[in-house]
Each structure stands twice: as structure tokens, then as C-alpha cells.
């Protein structure tokens, strides 16, 4: 029985170690999640102001024009798959990869996939027929140092390829951030730009436009698209830490449950061993007395 005791003791130690790691990872994710959420909060005033300026400028102009809103028959599609660099975050990455694969079913169109994040890169790297041209080799590593300049560069390349007709449609796949525990895998149309429905929000103010209204719109639209892309990246980043936090919380709970069961069976085994020992001693002393 002593051997059984030792084995159980070793398992308890190993489960305790694992639990320490998962709970530490959870704490790290909590901190990173907070920082990622701060980044979303910080960019919100900018995004909102840009939207309202755009609404004010384009209000009196006919929408549905311009290079980025051109609707062409869709033959070539670019799918941007936003995942994370690290795993251990539940179904976070697999959901995106699955969505992308489902989206590529229409055989009449040809597809390219631009992976962002190491996990998507690992999943699509070997399928060379899906590799898009004109992007830097390390584009997937954008999350290493996520900032607007990087998103801007990426956005420029995507916009350019849409404008010159390389792609007729661009879609964005990312985990939308709802709260720390809930992320929704989202398949979002990025280009062509759909005419916005909320033109009622245009204010009555008479602005001076410099240069002309049309020129301003032409400059703001690419910028607003890049902001939209950046927002998707930031949301995915926050979702990643949220997903990992939930996954690690679950793992810690499972470990503590396992630990309780192991402790019970350890104590049972220990008591059984003691009982046997007492019985042997009693039996031995009775034999001597007799």
C-alpha cells in the first residue's frame, strides 16, 4: 500500500504545480486584458470624431461613389484572418480558421488568405495557393507590437490591391469583443465600402470646406477604413486575453477539483495503511501474551 501512497502524493504535487501555472497565466491575462481594453477606449474618441466628420462632409454628396465603394462582379476575394500569436485560449483561433474555411466554399471565386497572428499563419502557411502577393513576409507578426502605424501600413496595402482590381472583395475575420468572457467570431465585409444608412445624423452647420468637399471625403475614407481595420485588430487582441483568462480560470478550477479527489483517496489509503499496521501489532502482541 505504501507504493500507492507515494504515487498519489506525486500526482498531488504535479497537479499543484499545474494549478500554480494556470492561475498565474490567468492573472497575467487579466492584466493584459485591461491594457488591451484601454487601447480600445483610447481610440474610441478618434474613431467617433472621424465618423461624425465623415458624416458631415459626405452628407450632401452622393454616396456610393469613389474607388473604395465600387461594386464589381466578385471573382477574387481576400480573406483577412485575425488570430493570436499564442494558444491556450480555448476555441479562439480555431473558430476563426473554421470560419475562413467555410467562407471559401464558393468554387466560382478564387480566394487568398492573409493570416494575421502566428496561429493563422501556421494554419495557412502550407497552402501556398492561398498566399496573397504584395505583403511583407512578417505581416502575420503584427501583434508583436500592435500600433496604428502598423495597421496603417497594412491598410494601405489592402486598399491599394482593391483599388487596382487585384481583389473585388475583402473580408475581415476576427473575434469581436463583447466582454471578458464572451467573444464572437465575426465575418465582416471590409471592402467594397457599403453606403452608410445613417445619413440622418448630418448636422445643419454650414462648414467651410478646404479643399473641396469631394477631396476631403477622398482623404478621409481611406483613413476611416484603416481605423476600422485597427479597431478589428484591437478587439481581437482584447478578445484573445479574455478568452485565455476564461480558459485558464476553467483549468484552475478543474485542477482544484482533481486535487480534492486526490487528497481524499490519499487520506483513505493512508488510513487503511495505519489500520492494517495496528491490526498487525495487536495480533502480534496477542500471540506473545497467549
Amino acid at each position, binding site marked *: 500500500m505504501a507504493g500507492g501512497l507515494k504515487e498519489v502524493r506525486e500526482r498531488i504535487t504535479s497537479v499543484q504545480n499545474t494549478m500554480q501555472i494556470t492561475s498565474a497565466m490567468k492573472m497575467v491575462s487579466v492584466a493584459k486584458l485591461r491594457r488591451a481594453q484601454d*487601447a480600445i477606449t*483610447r*481610440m474610441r*474618441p*478618434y*474613431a467617433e*470624431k*472621424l465618423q461624425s*466628420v465623415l458624416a*458631415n*462632409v459626405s452628407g450632401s454628396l452622393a454616396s456610393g461613389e469613389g474607388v473604395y465603394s465600387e461594386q464589381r462582379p466578385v471573382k477574387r476575394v481576400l480573406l483577412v484572418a485575425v488570430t493570436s500569436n499564442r494558444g491556450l485560449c480555448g476555441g479562439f483561433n480555431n473558430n476563426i480558421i473554421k470560419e475562413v474555411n467555410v467562407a471559401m466554399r464558393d468554387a466560382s471565386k478564387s480566394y487568398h488568405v492573409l493570416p494575421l497572428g502566428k496561429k493563422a499563419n501556421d494554419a495557412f502557411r502550407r497552402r501556398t495557393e492561398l498566399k496573397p502577393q504584395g505583403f511583407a513576409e512578417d505581416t502575420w507578426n503584427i501583434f508583436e507590437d500592435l*500600433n*496604428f502605424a502598423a*495597421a*496603417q501600413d497594412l491598410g494601405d496595402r489592402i486598399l491599394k490591391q482593391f483599388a487596382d482590381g487585384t481583389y473585388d472583395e475583402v473580408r475581415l475575420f476576427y473575434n469581436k469583443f463583447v466582454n471578458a468572457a464572451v467573444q464572437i467570431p465575426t465575418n465582416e465585409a471590409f471592402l467594397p465600402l457599403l453606403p452608410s444608412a445613417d445619413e440622418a445624423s448630418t448636422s445643419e*452647420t*454650414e*462648414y*467651410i*470646406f*478646404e*479643399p473641396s468637399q469631394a*477631396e*476631403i471625403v477622398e*482623404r*478621409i475614407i481611406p*483613413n476611416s477604413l484603416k*481605423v476600422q481595420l*485597427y479597431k478589428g485588430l484591437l478587439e481581437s487582441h482584447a478578445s484573445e486575453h479574455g478568452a485565455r483568462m476564461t480558459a485558464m480560470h476553467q483549468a484552475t478550477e478543474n485542477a482544484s477539483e482533481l486535487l480534492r479527489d486526490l487528497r481524499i483517496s490519499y487520506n483513505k489509503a493512508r488510513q487503511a495503511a495505519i489500520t492494517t499496521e495496528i491490526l498487525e501489532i495487536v495480533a502480534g502482541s496477542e500471540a506473545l501474551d497467549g
Partner: protein
Amino acid sequence: MKVDILTPDTTLFSGEATYVGLPGADGSLGIMNSHAPLITTLQAGDVVVKNGSSEERFTVGGGTVEVLNNVVTVLAE
């Protein structure tokens, strides 16, 4: 008047000012109190914010400016 200089990553400046100098797309322009509503785009250059005798400079790579009701919002890139 109130001035906000925003970038997607952070808020560079938020506060009162008496004068704002901007690198407008068609040449530099200055905004003082009670300026008429204006929307314009910027080219790369320095945004100068003066409040009395103090002065601050911010380098921008381009952007958009809205002036409305004595609030200047610079959306820098």
C-alpha cells in the same frame, strides 16, 4: 477655445488655447477664438498650440481638422 489633438493610439493634447497653427493641405492656417465652422485636411508638419505665452508643438503626418463652436478637433495620423 478648446483644443483636442487625437490620434488612434492616444490623446496628444486636450485643453484651452488662444491660437492653433495648422499645416493645412493648401498652406498653413491659424485658428483663433470664434473661428467659423471649418473642416479641412492636413499635410505633414507641426501643429502649434499657443495659450497666452506658452506654446506646444506636435508633429503630425497628416490628418483632418474640424472647427465647430470654439472647439478645435485635430485628428492626427
